Each structure stands twice: as C-alpha cells, then as structure tokens.
C-alpha cells in the first residue's frame, strides 16, 4: 500500500477529538475570568506549539536536503505533510492578531497602549513589540515558511512524475532548501520573541529562541515517531525499519540533552548574574509554579535521558512510543510553562486596573496582583480542559496532515536518495541482512 487510505474510522475518531477540543475550549471560555485569560492563553499555547511543529518539519527537510542526507527520504512525505500545516497555523495566529486589534484578550502587556506609555521599559521596546509588527511579522514570516513548505513539497511531488536522471528537481530543491535555512534561522527567533517571549514583556533572554526552537524540534521528532509507528501498524511504510526509527530515537535523545543544555545555560547565567529584572522570571516560577518548573525537567530531561541512553531501547517499538509520548507531552508542558505565568500576571494587572479605576489606586492594585498567584487550575498545572484542548488541536493537526498525506504516494521513487534510504542500516544484528542487500 503506497498511498494512505484516510477514511471512515480514523476520520470519525479525529473529528470526535476535535469536537472534544471545541467543547473544552467552550467550557474554558464560559467559566473564565472576565478577560477570558485561560481560554486565550490555551489558544495561544496550542497554536504556537503545533505551528512550530510544522515549521520544524520544513526546517528539518531543508537542513537534510542541504546536508545531502538520504536516510529520511523513505518517510519524507510525512514531514512534507506536517509542513503544510503552516497554512492552518497562519489562520490560527490570525485569530490572536484579531484579538490584539480588537482588544478581545490581554495576552500581551505591550498591546495595552496606556500601560506602554506609563512604562519606560515597555515604551523602549515598543518599536518591536507593537501590534503592527506582530501582525506584519506573523503574516509575512508564516507566509514565507508556508511558501517554502509548499515549494519543497511541490518539487518533491513533481519529481515523482517528471523526475529525470540528472536529478534536476533535486538540484532545484537544494537551492530552495539552502535559501530557506538562514531565513528560518532569523525569522524563527523573531517569531518566538513576539509570540512567546513577549508574554513576559519586561523580561528577555538571548537564549530564548534557541531554547524554544529546540523544544519545537523535540515535539516534531516525537510526533514523527508516533506517526510512523501508527502508519506501520496500519500496514503502510513497511520499508521503514528499526534503523530509521533508531536514528529518530537518537535525534530525540541527543536533542533532549541539547534542550537541557540550553535550559540550564539560560537558568545558570541568569542565576549567576543575579540581575533583578532577569531573575524575576525564574523567581516567579520557582515560588509559584514549582510543579511546572521541576516537572519540565523531569519530563524533558530525566525521562528521555535515562530511557533512551541504552542503545537497544531506541530499537523497541514499546519503549520508543512510550518515550515519544512523554517527550511530546513534556514539550507541550514546556510551552505551557513559558506562556501561562506571564499571561497570568498581565491579566491580573489588567483586572486590578479595571477594578480600581485610574489614579493612585492603580499602582497599588498592580502591586497586589503580583502577589496574588495562588494555585489555579489551568495555570499552576494543566487541567483537564487544557488536555482536552490539546487533544482537539492535535486532532486538527493530524486530520489536516493525514489528509495531505493521503493525496500522494509515500514512495518518492525518483529521489536520488531512494536507494540509500531503503538500505539504511544503523546496526547490523544479522549478517544475512547485509549480505542480502548485495
């Protein structure tokens, strides 16, 4: 079976989960504070998370094409399909933009004109952190990403039909891919600053973009492993072997360490420097969100590090799937941890401000808001509504991606690396396996 048959049962299940997600979002909206902080932060969190997975897919494709890698070609249709989700991501982010212009939400402190005018730090940053840039940046950059995702896939699909022996398609793909890498490097940082880091508008970290992108990368790799195992269980991609999964497992292992390295570097430098306006980020999380903070490290470092350390564990479906689920959920948790505390402060300040009216009470209320961060479901830890919302977004992602996938064959038969990828061997356990190839 070279083409995915995406019908019936799977569609029903995914639509079911999408409805569940919508119900959860509706419930969140209905039982929220008057600014609907929990609803909007959930929406931003999941939109950024799944858009990032799509971005990483096109980035990884471009990186692998540029590096003349061949091992992934056997499942490159999966990443090509993932990458097309960028267009949906653009739609999702547009709603956040509409919310900024229409003042439907208070996700970003810098979007509040009055607050910016009264605040020297925010007004200093306002040439970058403003609604116009947010809008333009998101539309232009997400649009660029989506264009490259479309272009690479379109060339790859055309290669199936009109591929020639001089690999003209692949040569063109290499140009597009190489052009995309620097663009992706700079623009992803800009997007991460605007979408995620600016929820803590006073705070900044130069490492943040790397750290967030590493988080996206791990989400994409773990979801890829899960998708491949699912497709194999349905009888597709039978040529994807343990060796391909082993390499994906290595990526998950290595990048988990890389993520931890960045996580720790950011933490240690701020801890060592001990500059109040930087440490506030961690002080706040350590004091009020210990479960989020330490859980993050447990899910994203301790678990994958010790489970995937042994070589054999990367070659077992069970362990690999188990770890992928942990890592996927772990990085979703990481984004939750990045977004929620900052959004919550902004919302509390805004609420206190509204309640006290203008004048001298305002400052007092703001002060009070900083201390009123008791345990709250959906902020201190993800609640059931957050899980439901995530499942809804995941179902939307998978529905779109599987639908894209079902339109084209899995086999990229004219790809110059097709032979290489079907004979990809990481570790030989049976010598007949290698002799059989020749």
């Amino acid at each position, binding site marked *: 079976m070279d083409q995915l048959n995406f019908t019936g049962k799977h569609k029903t299940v995914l639509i079911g989960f999408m409805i569940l997600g919508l119900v959860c979002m509706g419930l969140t909206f209905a039982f929220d504070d008057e600014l609907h902080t929990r609803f909007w932060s959930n929406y931003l969190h999941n939109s950024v998370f799944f858009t990032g997975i799509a971005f990483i897919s096109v980035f990884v494709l471009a990186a692998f094409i540029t590096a003349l890698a061949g091992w992934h070609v056997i499942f490159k249709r999966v990443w090509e399909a993932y990458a097309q989700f960028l267009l949906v991501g653009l739609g999702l982010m547009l709603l956040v933009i509409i919310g900024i212009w229409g003042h439907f939400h208070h996700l970003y402190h810098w979007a509040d004109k009055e607050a910016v005018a009264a605040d020297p730090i925010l007004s200093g940053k306002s040439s970058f952190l403003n609604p116009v840039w947010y809008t333009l940046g998101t539309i232009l950059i997400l649009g660029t990403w989506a264009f490259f995702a479309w272009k690479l896939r379109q060339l790859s699909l055309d290669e199936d039909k009109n591929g020639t022996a001089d690999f003209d398609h692949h040569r063109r793909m290499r140009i597009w891919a190489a052009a995309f890498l620097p663009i992706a490097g700079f623009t992803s940082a800009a997007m991460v600053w605007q979408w995620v880091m600016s929820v803590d508008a006073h705070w900044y970290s130069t490492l943040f973009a790397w750290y967030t992108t590493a988080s996206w990368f791990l989400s994409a790799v773990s979801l890829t492993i899960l998708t491949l195992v699912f497709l194999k269980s349905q009888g597709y991609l039978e040529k994807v072997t343990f060796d391909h999964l082993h390499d994906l497992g290595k990526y998950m292992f290595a990048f988990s360490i890389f993520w931890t390295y960045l996580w*720790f570097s950011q*933490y*240690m430098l701020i*801890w*060592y420097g*001990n500059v109040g306006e930087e440490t506030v980020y961690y002080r706040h999380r350590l004091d009020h969100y210990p479960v989020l903070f330490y859980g993050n490290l447990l899910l994203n470092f301790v678990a994958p590090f010790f489970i995937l*350390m042994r*070589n054999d564990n990367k070659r077992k479906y069970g362990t690999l799937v188990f770890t992928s689920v942990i890592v996927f959920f772990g990085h979703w948790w990481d984004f939750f941890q990045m977004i929620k505390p900052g959004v919550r402060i902004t919302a509390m300040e805004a609420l206190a401000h509204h309640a006290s009216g203008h004048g001298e009470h305002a400052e007092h209320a703001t002060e009070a808001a900083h201390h009123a961060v008791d345990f709250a479901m959906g902020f201190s830890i993800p609640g059931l509504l957050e899980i439901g919302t995530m499942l809804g977004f995941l179902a939307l992602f998978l529905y779109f991606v599987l639908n894209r996938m079902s339109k084209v064959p899995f086999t990229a038969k004219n790809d110059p690396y097709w032979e290489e990828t079907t004979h990809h*061997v990481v570790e*030989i*356990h*049976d*010598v*007949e*396996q*290698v*002799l059989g190839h*020749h």
Partner: protein
Amino acid sequence: MRNANKEVLYGLYDDEEVLLKAVVKAQHEHRTIMDVFTPFPVHGLDPALGLSESRLHIAGFVYGAIGTLTALLFMTWVFTRDWPIIFGGKPYFSLPAFIPITFEVTVLFASIGMVVTFYTICGMAPGVTNPTLDDRITDDKFCIAFDVTNADADEKSDIQSFLSGSGASEVNTKNI
C-alpha cells in the same frame, strides 16, 4: 612476546564484501578463525564472527557515574565544610555553579576510564610491540587469519584452498 612461535596462515582480500562472505562461509563450515584484520570497521563483521556486543559502554557509564559523584561530593565538601567562601552572594552549597564542573569531570572520568579499560583489554601499553601479519592490512587489504601451529599438512592445505576459494588474492604463512 606473549604469542611467540605461533604459525599463522592468512588470506588477503581486496574487498570488504568478499571478506564478509568468506567469514560467513567459514562460519558455516565450522572453521575456527583466529582473527580478522581490516583497515576500517566493516559493517556486519561482528555478528558474522559471532562476537557479542562490547560491554565497554557499560564500564563507561560506571566511570561517568563515579565522576559525577566525585565532582559533586568533592565540591560540596570543599565549599560547605573545608573552605567555605562566599562567591557573589551565593550560598555555600550552590548546585547550579557545580553543574558545569560536574559535567566536565563526568566526561573526563568516562573517557579516560574507557581508554584505559580498552587498552588493558587489548593488551596495549607503552613499549609493547604487536606483530603485524602484513603492513597492507592497515591500508587496503582485508585479512582472515587462522592459527595453524598444531595443524598437519592436510589441514593446512584445506585452509589454503578455502582461502583462495573464497576470493583471497594472496595466501601466506607467517610465524609470529
């Protein structure tokens, strides 16, 4: 020398695939291969020779863990008991400041420990001279060697014909 006066019959192959097939053939015919020499690691040679997975990495993990503990305990002892100094207003026991050094010592212990273990297993040390069968096995030849010290003429010619029959471009004998 340790293995002095050993008579070795060996075949030289030009290609690693031919070598790999010859090794598999020898295993099927239940011949006892003394050793195989290649200029670079050949994929699939270990399982073909029936070698089990190396346990060197387990030793590496143990050395690394010892390194982690050594660094953490030593720094903790120095900075809390033996010579407490305040750096930058931080507490005596400052775990984040210890982590980079802990990491380095872990790597150091693991790497040095594994190198020493590997050299010990292989019988390598400064001053040891290891006899080579043929200089070209470090360049472009692949070699299968049989120990024929106690073999009679029939057995030797049988091995000889196996080597040339399985694609060896040269068959030689050498006393090492």
